[in-house]
Structure formats: C-alpha cells, structure tokens
C-alpha cells in the first residue's frame, strides 16, 4: 500500500534543540496506535528555515504547515488531520496582523518570496537517505558532466554562470577553477570550507544537515573538471549533527560507487576526508584553513600567489564554501544560462551577482530563520516581506550584513539591492550571509563595540595592526560607552581603522573596522551624544543613563504606591505611601526594574 501522507518533520539543529526527536517518536507511536503506519509516513528532514516557529512539520501532499508543536499536541493532530482529514487551525502559522491562520506553507510570506537552489531539497527529503536525494535529480548533474562534457567545458559552464564564492569574498568561482586547471601539477586538491564562524550564521550547517549529497555532488563535478583525487572538508567541531549526516552521506555514496575507485565505472577516483576544525574564526580564511589542515597554527598567509596555484602541500588547491558547492550540480544540470538569468548582471551582461544567496536572518525581526533569495532583492523585502518587520512595533534602526565585520546600514539604504558590489560600495559586504537587524533600543556604539570585541579576540595575532590596532580601537569604544570618550577619540578611531584595513594580510583585519566605520558614518549623532553630551540615546550604555521619578505623576496618579521601592534590589529608592518617591543616583545600579514595575509611567530614563 502506498503512503497517502508524508509528514515532513524538521530535524535541523534549531528544531532538534526544541525537541524534534521526542516529537518524532510521539508521532510514530500515535500513528501506530491508529494503525495508520502503512498509510502515513513521518520523514525527518533537514532545516526548513523557519526556525523561529519550530518544532514544525509540513504535511504533504497538501503542504499544510504546523508550527510550535508539543508532544501533547500529537494525539489530537494525528486523529483530526491524519485520520479524519481535518487540518487543525490552532497549530497553523498565524500572522500577527491578520490573526487568520495560513494553512499552506507557500502562502506564508516567509516562504513565498524565497527561491531555492542551494536549499532546493530542504524539507523535501530525508538527508540520511541517498535514494531520496537521487530521486530529486540527485547525481544527475555529475553524470551529465562525465558523460557529455569535457573538463574544460565544465569550467566554462561555471564561468558563464557568473557564480561567485558564497563564503564571503565573492571571487568568481569559474575563474578560480580555471587558474587551478591551467596550473601544471602532479596532484591537485579540493577543500570544502564548512568552518562557519560568524555569530548567528548557520547557512553552511543547514545545507550539510539538510542536503549533504548536494555538496558531495558539487565536489564530484569540480574534481572531474580539475582532475582531483583527494578532497578535504573542514567542518567546525561545534556542528555534531552536520558531521553525523555528512559521514552518513559519505558512507552511502561510497556504497553506491559514487566515491572511491572507478566511480560509476568511469575510471574516476575520489576520496573525501573530514577534517574537524577546533573553532577558530580565522580558520574560515582559506590560507589559515590550509595551514590548519597541514597541522600548523591557523594563521593567514600572504596571497600574492593564490591557493589555486600553490595551496595545500604546495599544490594547486581549490577552496570553495559549502553553499558554492551546493550550487554546482544545478548549474551543470540546468545550464549556466538559467543560473545567470537569476540575480543581477553588470552593464556588459557579465559580472554582477547571479543566482541566489542564503541568509540567516536574525535580530529584532518577527520571522527569524534561514532564507534563500534571488540576488538583487532589496534589504527591505528581506526584512519586511520575509522577516515580517520589526518585533513589538519598534522602529527599525539598522541591518548588519556580512557577519561580525560587516557594516551597519541605516533605513535610508533599505532599498539597496543585495549584490556583492552594491554592499561593498556602502561600506558593508555580502560575507557569508549573516543578517542582523537592530531596532531603536540598540545603541550603535555598543553594537560596534560588541562586534569589534568578537573580531579582536578572534584575530590570529600575526599582523600587528590587526592584533594591536583592534585592541586599541576596542579600548576607545569601551571608554566611549562608559562616558569617558573625547572628540579626539573619534578621529583616532577613523585613523586606526584606515591603518588596519590597509596593513592587514587577510580579510579579517581588512574588514574588522567595518562596524565602526559604518556606524560612525550613518549614526554619527549617536557617537556625538556619547562623547559630547555623555548620553546614550538608545538608553543601552548603563553608565550614561539615569532613572528619575517624576514626583508629580508619582503622587497624583500613583499615590506613592511604593512598588518601585519594594522591588529595588539596591534599596536605592526612598519614599512613603502617598508621598513622592526618589531614586538615589549614588546607589542606583540602573537595572531598570523600577521602570518595568511602575504602573503609572512615573519613571523615565534619560
């Protein structure tokens, strides 16, 4: 008997930490109880992307989307929907504006504007089942390449597609391959870069977790084109689920003769070896990553010779990011023309940013999660249409693109198309696709300080400007947020930034000052308020704010109720019933509890 329902249950890391596996068991138990196990199958899938509302399932064939499921919801859902065919409204996604549940996944705006290439199998297949990957045109791109194309044609196709590296730099992938192709050597290597270090970014993890074979197939195509026999994947130690699924995928691919000796009987050999990174941010940089694989300390190297000419063990080495590899099979299968028709193109019909990009949308938006969108979409569409706008009716302040060393962009740039070159022009970058949205409650000086702190502690220490310069910049920013900054400090910050960008070997130092430079450019008034008036307009920097009780409101409206006094952990509030209360600034440690508990809005922050 064929299955009539497939319950696609998200088992990406986000949903797993929200209890997806116990939920899976509960579903299977309940389905068995109703003797539906011959008709209804539960399929664990990779990350669905809408992490904000997990754990979640999509019921196929009708594509009914259920969110925030708990184990106690399972019996009702199984009986009502899976048995009696009545979709259950109360578990559906309900947008905050309309209050009307949306049953079908693709009708939910979060999904509607997305376009999936790298993530085309997400939620549709079981990542641990190679047959399901094969069913969705899996390994078809590879067989097309080895049976109908020469290595040179493969490289030309990738070049024509306009694909640019998804790991951050945006270097044209085909060009990189061509350099390695033209370099004579007895041995060449491929490295899959899955050392995803940006805080809050999880594009690569999600691809490996939801569709590991797409990466393996991409690499097979690359290996065929470049004559590579040995591939390394560099995965973060912190990605246990991704690792497990990748190992499983390697096992299955080897079993099917898609890896190993004489692949598909075509005489090609390929091995993939997993190398686990220890969690250093710098090892996402390709030269540092190569050093790390060779057993040295992860430090960036000068790149006057590209790794494509002289990389691992001094041999030509192609390093591409996970997302880049996942795009390759589709480019070969569907053609460069198709890929290049998506996204943006330069004036001469070349360059630009083609295809799609995966972003991890986090911060103060309603719908946080993983989204894949065509290049050229505006920031506004991502944040408002897909992200559902800013939470709690707050005002948008900025969006940081490109990870910890990306720039913060203000509201006036929201209509900017997302494109490698456009983002660079305004002082930010594509990076690997992090997108952090802030609202009016975020202090931009403090945000710059936070990310500089991250980059500073992750600097490998090789170049003095990066190692010492970011430390001095951090000192200055800390002083400013403590109310001890001077106007001279602002000049120094700019000088140091310029110096670090110019004199660091790798992109870590080269981009580290971005958050500071962009916040100083677009949110200058906040720096000046901190430095000149010793005030923090967003009320975030504690040394710069004071809590005060409006005596009149306190007595007239609140009758000196004393709730603030009773709740103050510092005993900094004095007053009696029916009389005005006062905060002693010397004792107040600015925790904000009084502000939260006052029902009469008698307390204000300045």
């Amino acid at each position, binding site marked *: 008997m064929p299955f009539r329902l497939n319950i696609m249950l998200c088992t990406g890391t986000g949903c797993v930490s929200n209890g997806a596996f116990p939920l899976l068991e509960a579903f299977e138990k309940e389905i068995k109880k109703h003797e539906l196990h011959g*008709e209804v199958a539960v399929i664990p899938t990779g990350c669905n992307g809408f992490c904000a509302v997990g754990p979640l399932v999509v019921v196929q064939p*009708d594509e009914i989307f259920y969110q925030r499921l708990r184990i106690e919801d399972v019996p009702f859902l199984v009986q009502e929907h899976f048995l009696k*065919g009545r979709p259950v409204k109360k578990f559906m996604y309900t947008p905050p504006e309309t209050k009307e549940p949306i049953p079908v996944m693709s009708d939910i705006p979060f999904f509607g504007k997305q376009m999936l290439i790298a993530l085309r199998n997400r939620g549709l297949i079981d990542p641990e089942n190679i047959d399901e990957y094969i069913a969705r045109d899996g390994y078809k791109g590879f067989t097309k390449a080895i049976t109908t194309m020469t290595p040179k044609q493969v490289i030309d196709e990738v070049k024509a597609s306009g694909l640019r590296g998804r790991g951050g730099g945006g270097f044209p992938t085909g060009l990189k391959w061509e350099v390695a192709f033209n370099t004579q050597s007895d041995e060449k290597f491929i490295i899959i870069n899955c050392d995803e270090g940006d805080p809050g970014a999880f594009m690569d993890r999600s691809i490996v977790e939801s569709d590991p074979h797409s990466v393996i197939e991409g690499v097979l195509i690359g290996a065929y084109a470049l004559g590579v026999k040995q591939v390394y994947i560099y995965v973060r130690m912190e990605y246990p689920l991704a690792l497990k699924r990748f190992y499983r995928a390697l096992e299955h691919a080897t*079993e099917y003769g898609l890896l190993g000796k004489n692949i598909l009987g075509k005489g090609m050999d390929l091995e993939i070896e997993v190398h686990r990174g220890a969690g250093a941010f710098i090892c996402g940089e390709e030269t540092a990553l190569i050093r790390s694989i060779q057993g040295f300390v992860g430090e960036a190297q000068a790149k006057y010779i590209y790794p494509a000419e002289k990389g691992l063990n001094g041999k030509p080495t192609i390093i591409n990011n996970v997302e880049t590899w996942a795009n390759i099979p589709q480019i070969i299968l569907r053609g460069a023309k198709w890929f290049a028709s998506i996204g943006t193109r330069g004036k001469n019909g070349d360059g630009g940013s083609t295809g799609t990009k995966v972003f991890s949308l986090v911060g103060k938006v309603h719908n946080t999660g993983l989204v894949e969108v065509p290049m050229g979409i505006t920031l506004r569409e991502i944040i408002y249409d897909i992200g559902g706008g800013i939470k709690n009716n707050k005002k948008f302040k900025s969006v940081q693109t490109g990870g910890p060393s990306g720039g913060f962009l203000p509201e006036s740039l929201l209509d900017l198309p997302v494109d490698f070159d456009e983002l660079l022009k305004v002082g930010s970058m594509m990076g690997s696709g992090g997108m952090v949205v802030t609202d009016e409650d975020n202090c931009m000086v403090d945000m710059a300080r936070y990310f500089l702190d991250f980059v500073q502690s992750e600097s490998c220490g090789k170049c003095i400007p990066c190692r010492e310069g970011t430390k001095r910049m951090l000192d200055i920013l800390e002083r400013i947020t403590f109310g001890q900054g001077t106007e001279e400090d602002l000049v120094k910050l700019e000088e140091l930034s310029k110096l670090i960008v110019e004199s660091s070997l790798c992109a870590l130092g080269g981009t580290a000052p971005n958050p500071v430079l962009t916040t100083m450019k677009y949110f200058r008034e906040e720096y000046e308020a901190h430095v000149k008036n010793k005030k923090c307009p967003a009320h975030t920097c504690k040394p710069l704010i004071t809590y005060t009780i409006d005596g009149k409101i306190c007595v007239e409206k609140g009758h000196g109720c004393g709730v603030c006094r009773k709740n103050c952990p510092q005993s900094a509030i004095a007053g009696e019933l029916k009389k005005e209360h006062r905060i002693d600034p010397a004792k107040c440690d600015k925790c904000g509890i009084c502000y939260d508990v006052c029902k009469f809005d008698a307390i204000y922050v300045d």
Partner: protein
Amino acid sequence: MAKLTIEELDKLREKAVDKLRLRESGENRGRVIVHLGTCGIAAGGRQVLTALLDEVEKQGIKDITVTTAGCAGLCSREPMATIELFGQTPVKYADLTAEKIKKILAEHVVKGKLIKEYALAVGSERVG
C-alpha cells in the same frame, strides 16, 4: 549494495521518484477524498480507504491524490467518498464498500465514466 553504473543509477532514480511523488506539486488529475468522520470510520471507511490505496498501487496510478476528510454530513449513508477530477464537477458516492470503491476507481477515475447507481449527488454544497 553493489557499486552502480550510470544506467543503474538512472534506474534507481526512476524507482525512487515514485516514493517522493507525494511531496512534489506535480501534474495531478484530481483527488479521491474518503470521508473519515467518526461515522465514516464506524461504517467501515477505513477498509474502503485501504482497498482504495491498494488498488491505486496495483494499477500504478500516479496522477491522483488519495486523501481523507471529515464527515460529509449524511452519516446514515457512510462510508462516503468524493471524486474531484480537476475541471469537472465533484461527485459524491455513498454506502461504499471495498468492492465498490475499486469499481469507482476503475470506471470513474480512470475512464471518466460516472457510476450512477452508486452516486449520491453530483456537485458540492455551496460554501459561505
């Protein structure tokens, strides 16, 4: 599993595609809805559904979705099913058995010939 050749890989894909058909929004001719309210289940709706699914597999029908829905409102005539072929008026069948649903599948769904003696009504109630 022995190592595959390209031809074997293609064959394996063809077989695997069937398993995933449910999840793809492909070319579909319509759907058969078995009404499985409490009344439908009590009257033997589950057996009708099982027989239907078996027959769909046996005949290799790939362009029809089999699904369930709640009580159709006429509990005394359960088990019931609705045949919805796209572009045609839906037809409701009543007092079904495993045998009847197989015949409906063969005649109505596959050949497009309505079986008058089993049919309850042509068309659906208005909604709203």
